[in-house]
């Protein structure tokens, strides 16, 4: 199948996903924004005088962390059950399976862009926007590749392991607290060493650097994140390719 045709299917499927989730109205996006905004409000009220007291621009620090995390969290959660939710399509139409997952991730990516727009507005309003923001698309691209890889693996594995959703929700909860979203790592503590192995730490830290603090991204962090993204994508695609031919039997 030529690339152009595939691109059109991806476009139509993504549009369908977006419409389904937002009940065919652009206002539906507001509901999507409400989640991260509420999380932000609660954490801000609770932590601004405690964990955040010594942090420069804590509100932006917190909001950028939540927004970057939210793309990962929501996209993987949706992708996890994507195959089961689309049993009808899987069992009756010869759609390429990877296109289905791609459209789910793309759908949440579009929603993520709305969140990012809010973040950018806030950054602009606080006068913190610097030229370093030009690095952000690269970070975003790496994050997309990472999320797509993890999503493919989860979508495929959930077909074989029916309790993966339970396991994943626990993993996500632990991961959320293990990532410096609402707290700050001490410069030389053990947390920093551990966080080197946390791809989400790199995604969030790099985004903060270029958007909130106007510093050039740390090349080492960028390299590590790039490796994480590529490994996740390669592994995810491998797992997906192994299981996806039998999707119609599992759903």
């Amino acid at each position, binding site marked *: 199948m030529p690339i152009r*045709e595939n691109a059109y*299917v991806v476009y139509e*499927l993504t549009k369908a996903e977006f419409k389904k989730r937002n009940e065919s109205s652009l206002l539906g996006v507001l509901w999507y924004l409400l989640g991260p905004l509420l999380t932000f409000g609660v954490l801000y009220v609770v932590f601004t005088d405690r964990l955040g007291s010594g942090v420069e621009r804590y509100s932006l620090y917190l909001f950028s962390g939540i927004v970057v995390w939210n793309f990962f969290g929501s996209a993987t959660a949706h992708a996890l059950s994507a195959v089961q939710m689309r049993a009808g399509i899987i069992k009756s*139409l*010869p*759609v390429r399976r990877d296109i289905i997952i791609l459209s789910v991730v793309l759908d949440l990516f579009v929603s993520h862009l709305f969140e990012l727009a809010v973040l950018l507005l806030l950054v602009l309003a606080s006068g913190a926007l610097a030229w370093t923001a030009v690095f952000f698309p690269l970070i975003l691209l790496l994050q997309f590749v990472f999320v797509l890889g993890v999503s493919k693996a989860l979508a495929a594995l959930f077909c074989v392991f029916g309790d993966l959703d339970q396991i994943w929700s626990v993993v996500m909860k632990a991961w959320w607290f293990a990532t410096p979203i609402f707290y700050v790592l001490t410069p030389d503590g053990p947390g920093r060493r551990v966080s080197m192995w946390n791809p989400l730490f790199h995604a969030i830290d790099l985004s903060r650097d270029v958007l909130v603090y106007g510093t050039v991204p740390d090349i080492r962090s960028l390299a590590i994140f790039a490796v994480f993204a590529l490994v996740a994508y390669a592994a995810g695609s491998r797992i997906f390719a192994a299981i996806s031919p039998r999707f119609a039997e599992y759903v």
Partner: protein
Amino acid sequence: MTDAVVIAERVSKRFILREYDSLFARLAGFMRGEEMPQRMWALRDVSFTLKRGEVLGIVGRNGSGKTTLLQVLAGIHVPDGGCAQVRGKLVPLINVGAGLQPKLTMRDNIALAGSIFGLSHGEIREKFDAIVDFSELRAFLDVPVRKFSGGMTARLAFSVAAHLEPEVLFLDEVLQAGDATFREKSRRKMEELIAGNTTVILVSHQEDVLRRLCSRVIWLHEGRVLMDGNPQAVTDAYARNCRAQIAAWNAARFWRQKRRCVWIMRQRMRRVFHGQIH
């Protein structure tokens, strides 16, 4: 054999009936030493070749592998043996309405289905009116498909499929959907497609449809081809088999009832005789 468009060569498919579907169950089952997974052959060595414009009918009891065969040919299932091949643009209508998105409107569904079957944006816009007119559902264009009745859903699905200009068309019990008028309309459309050299595989329980449209009929039984040939002969044999089955049940029921009658009579007689003697 150059003009063969559908080729099935000793196609076999094995389904997993039971398996450990979670990590916990896998661990627990491993300790108990259960034999897993349990499998079953859904298709066994099914072979046939269809030329352009041929119409194949498939009959068989529920669970005999009719839908599975279509799914394997459509590439939805991978065969566990043999090979299946379809040349040309395939439009499979399996589980009517399952491919439709219930939350989306009819308009969005037509666009989505069109794109899935490889139509460009322009082509979809071109055919849109013909599809809507054929389905006679113009009044419901902006209604979510979940509010459609079963018959309306089937009408929409068939209308879309028929207008995608398929070279190969699979129909899984689609033609019995809808009211009598729409059924006749869709049969005419089918005849039109067949005349236009579309190759069709038709799964149906309606003998008259099979006889009218098909050039060949296959009878599947427990995943194997039991009979393959002339539509009249195969549908007759299948119908005879079904009637024989029903007759056997009736006979069994008759003997059961007769035995029961005799037993009841004996009981009564015994009671009567006992009364007389004592």
